[in-house]
């Protein structure tokens, strides 16, 4: 009889403690995220996520979550291969500048991640569809993006996974930095048929190069991320390595190469002018993209 009572009390205690634990867990599962749009409380772990920027896709891939909708301008190839390999299929919700609110709403997401630079004006509308985080995407630098990744990881309840992966990432960058050991100045630029834009150390590509210990040929510390550069300015900047991402077949570089001043550029003499993918170097702006960029530049500098 006493045994039975003890058992019952035991069960009772176990039940009570389990309920406390469950309640505690439920409260703990409620996460408050501070972001550029204020504060958002997530009561459950989001499963259906819509993202409106390419660096967010990268962050989700690292966290092991597959987004159900991406603002990819209707072109799935804009997401780089490394990121695409880690996520499933998704629906396009339009362009980053004018995402279709209807398309987002019809996907019934439980979390939306939007860009502070582009979506401030529709933040209210997005919040009506689902809890929305406003984080920096346009003009983000390498270090800022790591911070953004941690916020996203917290929201998705994948902090441990992402932290571990970030540790491996930092180790990789450190080892690549040791392998490079070069004094050469490296510059990334975007080329169109109308001009050349240098990506300064404030831009994503520029800050990745800086993290690898590579020198920037730009004098002073420019406040802008993208500097439009004329041929004369390029001659003055004169980087040792020039990586170009081309947005059109024919660019101003072809014109400049016919000028007698071209041979005064050191990249013309050393042939250290390399064409790279603008999708990867300019558009992707994520951790996986940074790793790929670092590997590419290490490969180039070791030869």
């Amino acid at each position: 009889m006493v045994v039975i009572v003890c058992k019952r009390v035991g069960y009772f205690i176990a039940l009570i403690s389990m309920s406390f634990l469950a309640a505690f867990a439920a409260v703990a599962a409620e996460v408050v995220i501070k972001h550029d749009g204020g504060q958002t409380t997530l009561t459950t772990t989001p499963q259906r996520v819509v993202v409106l920027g390419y660096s967010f896709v990268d962050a989700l891939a690292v966290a092991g979550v597959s987004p159900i909708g991406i603002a990819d301008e209707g072109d799935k190839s804009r997401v780089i291969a490394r990121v695409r390999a880690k996520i499933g299929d998704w629906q396009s919700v339009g362009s980053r500048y004018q995402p279709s609110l209807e398309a987002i709403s019809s996907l019934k997401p439980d979390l939306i991640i939007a860009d502070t630079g582009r979506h401030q004006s529709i933040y209210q509308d997005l919040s009506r569809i689902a809890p929305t985080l406003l984080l920096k995407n346009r003009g983000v630098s390498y270090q800022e993006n790591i911070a953004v990744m941690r916020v996203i990881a917290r929201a998705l309840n994948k902090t441990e996974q992402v932290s571990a992966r970030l540790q491996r990432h930092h180790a990789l960058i450190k080892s690549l930095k040791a392998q490079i050991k070069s004094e050469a100045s490296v510059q990334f630029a975007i080329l169109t048929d109308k001009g050349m834009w240098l990506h300064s150390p404030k831009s994503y590509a520029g800050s990745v190069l800086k993290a690898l210990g590579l020198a920037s040929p730009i004098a002073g510390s420019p406040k802008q991320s993208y500097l439009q550069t004329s041929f004369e300015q390029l001659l003055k900047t004169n980087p040792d390595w020039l990586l170009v991402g081309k947005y059109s077949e024919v660019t101003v570089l072809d014109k400049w190469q016919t000028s007698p001043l071209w041979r005064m550029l050191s990249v013309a003499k050393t042939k250290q002018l390399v064409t790279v993918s603008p999708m990867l170097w300019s558009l992707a702006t994520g951790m996986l993209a940074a790793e790929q960029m670092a590997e590419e530049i290490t490969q180039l500098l070791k030869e």
Partner: protein
Amino acid sequence: MKPYPILLSSLLALLLLLSGVSLLFGAEQISIDNLVATLWQGGDLDFIVNQYRLPRLLIAVLVGIGLAVSGLLTQAVIRNPLASPDLMGISGGAGFAACLLLLVWPQIGSVWLPLAALVGGFSAAAIIWLLNRWHQPSPARLALVGIAISAFFTSCIDFLLVLNPVEVNSAMVWLTGSLWGRNWDYIWPLLPWLLILVPFSLYLAWSLDLLALGDESANALGVNTERLQISALFTAVALASVSVAVCGTIAFVGLLAPHAARLLVGFRHQLLVPVTALIGALLVLSADTLARNLAPPMELPAGVLTATLGAPYFIFLLSRYKGW
């Protein structure tokens, strides 16, 4: 010519039908019963219907009315059926002022934009008005001054954009005449102006008919032409500026709606004002509905569609206009 009440009610019916179509179609298809249920009770599709399509529909109608009546008044005052506020630099001035505000204070709430646009629109109108007063230019000269002022404001806007490249796209989206991202917050700054000014235009309508007879005849009939012209122009500029403040420049509505109305009901302004308003609403609403549905989920700006439809029709009008 149809009897007036029948015409008015058929236009209203057409507008209601188009509204229904606009609410039904979009990136996501909705059935009619779903639509009715959502309008009354909310539910799953509450966001799409009540927070997205419905306010957008209402804004399109309001802006259409504003631009159309503004065009009608401008044409009456300048006495040239080919004048319109966007071609006179008023939209340019309104756009520049609002753009300046957006670029200098990106966090500004949307309620301040109509005020800024009004200031800009009135400055541009003041320049034109003064020129009209002092030099009595021919319609050709006035049109040219309008273009020059428009071009000036466009260059100023481009200058601002070149200096602040980070904001280029948001300014562009706003400037082109697009209803994307316009929700209930944009209706409240717009509605009061329309509620006051459109009935006021009806009130002016009778005097405007007299004005069309010529300044001396109108004066002889007891109309204070000076005051009438100022009030009409004031109303026109206010309506145009407020519409531009909410949606950017939606071209050709102020030019075409009065014309189409004249084809239907003749030249009496008392009849013209309501018909013009309805036609303007129809124009902008159909442009926006098409813009949303041509290539979902990508959206075109409504202003492009009005220009695509408007320019050829304008040219057709040009070739038929006998009053050279």
